[in-house]
């Protein structure tokens, strides 16, 4: 690798890295009730949004949701009583039911939702590794056959040419 090439690649990489990260700052605090509202589903029934992000009005979706605002006030009320975050969430779930979790609980049937993506990934990865190993064995066998063949027939040569063409053409 030449020096110029190294410098060019490094400059490109650093530009990409430096440009966005210059803006990084520490996250600001929104009022705590609003933050907690992001962990509870809005009770408007028109969407899957949290009370902290629900932004529709009157069944349409055109602004801050009044029901979400009410829920935020309830959360604030619980906080004013001295409840901690988990207690506030539990109080809201007690009132609105398990459907008010904005994400599935990590217990009972809700756990299935959390486990399944990992299962898909692991099962898929195992399948891919299995397929690759199987195809590799075929590749090794084909290579061995080719090595044992003393002369190359015109058919095999033509096939190899076709493969080479495929591998390089667009």
């Amino acid at each position: 690798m030449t020096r110029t090439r190294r410098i060019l690649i490094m400059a490109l990489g650093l530009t990409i890295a430096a440009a966005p990260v210059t803006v990084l700052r520490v996250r600001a605090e929104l009022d705590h009730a609003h933050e907690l509202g992001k962990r509870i589903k809005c009770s408007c029934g028109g969407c899957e949004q949290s009370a902290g992000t629900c932004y529709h009005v009157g069944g349409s979706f055109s602004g801050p949701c009044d029901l979400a605002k009410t829920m935020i006030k309830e959360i604030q009320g619980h906080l004013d009583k001295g409840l901690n975050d988990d207690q506030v969430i539990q109080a809201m779930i007690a009132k609105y039911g398990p459907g008010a979790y904005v994400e599935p609980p990590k217990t009972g049937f809700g756990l299935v939702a959390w486990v399944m993506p990992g299962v898909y990934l692991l099962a898929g990865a195992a399948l891919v590794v299995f397929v690759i190993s199987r195809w590799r064995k075929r590749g090794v066998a084909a290579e061995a056959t080719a090595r044992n063949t003393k002369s190359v027939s015109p058919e095999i040569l033509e096939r190899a040419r076709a493969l080479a063409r495929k591998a390089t053409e667009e």
Partner: protein
Amino acid sequence: MDVFGSFALLLAFVCALYALLGGIAAILTRHPLLIKSTRQAGIAACCLIFLATLSVVYLFVTDNFSMSYVVSHSNRDLATFFKVVALWSGQEGSLLFWCFLLSIYIFSVLVAYRNKHGELMPYVGTILAGVQLFFLTISNFVASPFKSLAIAGSSGGLEYFAKADGNGLNPVLQYPEMIIHPPNLYSGYTGFTIPFAFALAALLARYPGEKWIHLTRKWTMIAWCFQTVGILLGAHWAYAVLGWGGYWGWDPVENASFLPWLTGTAFLHSVMMQEKRGMMKVWNVWLVFITFMLCILGTMLTRSGVVSSVHAFAQSNIGSWFVGFLLVVIAVCLVAYFKNRDYLKSENQLDSMVSRESSFLFNNLVLLVACIAILSGTLFPVFSEWFTGSRISVGAPFFNKVNIPLGLLLLFLTGVGPLLAWRKTSGESLRRNFLWPIVIGLLGGAIAFALGARDFYALVCFLLSTFVAATIGAEFYRGAKVIRARSNLTWLSSAVELTLRNTRRYGGYIVHFGIVMIFIGLAGQAFNQEVQKEIGVGGTVRIGPYELLLQAVDQKQEKNYVAERMIVEVLKNHKPVMILFPERRNFPTNQESGTMVAIYSTLREDLYVVYAGVNQGSEVPTIHVFLNPLVKWVWFGGIVVVMGTIVALLPSRHAALVLAGSKAPEVAPGFANAVPSSVALREGHD
């Protein structure tokens, strides 16, 4: 005009029915006249759908309030271009619009290939007619946009009447992006019908060779490009209109649009294995099938009310029709596959675990896992209700937790894949290709850390983005260097020349670069800040380096709405930057209100200001301010992705043309017969 439109739509149904039934007969009999007549029936259906669509637009523009659909989605004061847009603002019109876009694709295919692929096209035409027939059935008999307002008369018959004015268009749809977002998204959805038709046709016809896969790939890229643009425009619309400060909320409708995009992306990668190595034929065919099925499934999910969505405009009882159609599609695909699966026999062989082929397999794995995870998450509330009796919500936090690691894994593979050689990658090649990108990636991560990034995923994202950008840069550098050595062009010209010579490969790299930019933008979300505060005139809000001063609150009367707006002066480091005007619009016609967000956008961050209403007791206005870093990178990334896709769709320039004037190298006679000249002159590998 309503009668004309309704009749045109009915006639289109008849033509499509003939194209389907006649097409089946043509396939069985191989009668040339029958083949020709069914093709012409397909073309006629497309033209008639065009006329029907034009009729609905005419009814909107002329304020024909005797039509139920026009009354529901328009009013006299609505601006003319929004009257045109109102075509797709509701269920009936959007389905007709769907038909219309599908007919443009079908028309293009039937006309462009009328004298080509004689064995394949009757199958393609028949399959397309089948899909078109389904949508025409819906538009004619289930959700017709041509219903007139009528009440039961005293004589027992129906008495038709017209209203003086309509109910108006949903306020959130009265935004310029609504003119281009649905057409793009629908073009993506409908566009996936064409690769589906080609893949199924090739399977049914046992079409020899690999030509069909080239056709399928090309049409998939077109649909994929539209889908990408549609998704990003939708995200931008949500960002600029809804006022919650974000652009992607994992709403079921958003998820539905993302699913075929994921499988389409997987296909665009794995198809290369079929083209280069003759591998994964079964997988590719099923990826195309599944992509189309996901388009139908997504439509069913969002229009049936099975899952709740902010896109409530589209909910109705037509879901069962889509379920039926989906079952038919699955049945046809399964029968076609089991009957002809020997046709898809592949020469699946791998030389090494460390190869381009393996990276594609893992790329497909991650894309498919993401797709299944999103689909199962979207449907989980329904499943939980079935199994437990109570509905468990699955919102954005769940999807973020599941998909962020998958996205980062995919980003990693985006960098690794192109650096691996086909068949086998040697240790020396690995060291040579990866050393500097890894060093640069680590440096990128270190810089991000030094500048205060402490969010783990964001840090990894910056590191991987730098790594991938370095690999892409290195690829361009290597190729351009060879061209430069031969032609004495500048670096930039060499890179352009390189791209034009191998548009697919380097267009793909440009797409990857766009994806990197999008990832950088997404990583910025980890550093979002927001403040909500009640402020009176003269009050201030501080966020990051900005101070916002509320100068006034006023009202302005527009033709279709009344706007209450804040006049907010933005100061940065105590210096005035600009004035922002966040609004709340009240639409008297349909008694609805909506926000109009004011955004001060730079490449570093977006200052996003929402007029969040007035405190009912104190009458003090509430301002909601977000500081969202790097959002613009998402939109710019999207533009780069589209540019890359367009480049990849262009035909590659023959290498010999580039070297015009220079003498072509001597090629041994035997070699010249074996390898095309273009190959002999091409650098690099793919």
